[in-house]
């Protein structure tokens, strides 16, 4: 049990996928303007990351490795993720419209999110992990993304009404803020 907690703490804080592993920066900076879009995006990322990692892990271990097709990993994974997102969108629209409406536009946007493909590829690099560990890793990575995103949005909402120098307004000061956040998270190294 402790190893799962360690895994969660490590994926959320120590190796936060956006602040320490540089994955998922585009949406991180793109939707951190308002809190409601940020929370929507976080939920969507957690949801898609878990599903995508699980399916790509199955593809890797039951299709690519047995047939010695590992070099096709990139193409296979991206096609899996793109189709998965398409399928999930249609499924949600039909059967769980409330969730579909709250996730909104972010679902298709996540296909080209490097966080999802990145976590999927990272998961395959741990050959010795059990399926449950992969699941926990994917979930915790998504949570870490959500945490970082919500934190940055909170600060950026305040910055939008603060007297920032004109050339730094918007993206530059957002990036500097993200840097401060990353600096804070650096302090978690050595915790696990």
């Amino acid at each position, binding site marked *: 049990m402790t190893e799962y907690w360690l895994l969660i703490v490590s994926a959320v804080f120590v190796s936060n996928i956006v*602040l*320490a*592993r*540089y*994955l*998922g*920066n*585009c949406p991180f*900076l793109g939707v951190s303007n308002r809190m409601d879009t940020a929370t929507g995006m976080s939920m969507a990322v957690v949801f898609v990351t878990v599903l995508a990692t699980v399916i790509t892990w199955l593809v890797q271990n039951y299709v690519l490795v047995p047939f010695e097709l590992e*070099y*096709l*990993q*990139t*193409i296979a*994974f*991206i*096609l899996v993720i*793109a189709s998965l997102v398409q399928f999930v969108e249609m499924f949600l629209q039909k059967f769980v419209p409330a969730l579909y409406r709250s996730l909104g536009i972010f679902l298709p946007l996540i*296909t*080209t*999110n*490097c966080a999802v*493909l*990145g976590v999927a*590829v*990272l998961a395959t*690099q741990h050959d010795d992990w059990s399926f449950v560990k992969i699941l926990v890793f994917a979930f915790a990575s998504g949570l870490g993304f959500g945490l970082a995103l919500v934190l940055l949005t909170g600060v950026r909402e305040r910055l939008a009404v603060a007297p920032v*120098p004109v*050339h*730094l307004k918007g*993206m*530059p*000061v*957002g*990036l*500097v803020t*993200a*840097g*401060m956040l*990353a*600096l804070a998270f*650096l302090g978690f190294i050595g915790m696990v």
Partner: protein
Amino acid sequence: MSVMQEFTKGLWKEVPPFRLVLGLCPVLAVTTAASNGLGMGLATTFVLVCSNTIISLLRSIIPGKVRIAAFIVVIASFVVIVELTMQAYFYPLYKILGIFIPLIVVNCIILGRAEAFASKNSLIPSVADGLGMGLGFTISLTFLGGVRELLGAGTVFGYALMGSSFQPFEVMVKPPGAFLCLGLILGLMNFISAKK
């Protein structure tokens, strides 16, 4: 726009990632050293030019509804080529760039140029656009890598430029430094563009 203009716009006016804020993941991750930035930039340029070429040639054949999927398949194929080539001939760089080589496939610049330009323009302008954007991206990455490497390790391309008493500003080669440097450079470019 003339072919020359298509090429040069990617070098300053619409240079990714500084002006065209796209494809940030590899920018922040690989610019820990100037040579890494250069390597990643060249790999991305190769994929961008090749995919722009193919997509421009096939633009009248690809059906509208499946175009994004088709673009992704084309781009992914070239990324696999680059991946295998790097694994064979540039192994140290391959190890450093790590998972960001397969992540070129979701680099918004490549998909963005395919969607916005290559699918609507003929071959030569598309190649020029890809080449310009790619080279601009490469120069930006090398520059950012150079700044971070200089401040974080005192060297540029491995050549020690600062004196021996220089205490490296190590946070620069770590994630916080990446965000900080990029933010400040973006601010600087806003300043320069405003002055013109």
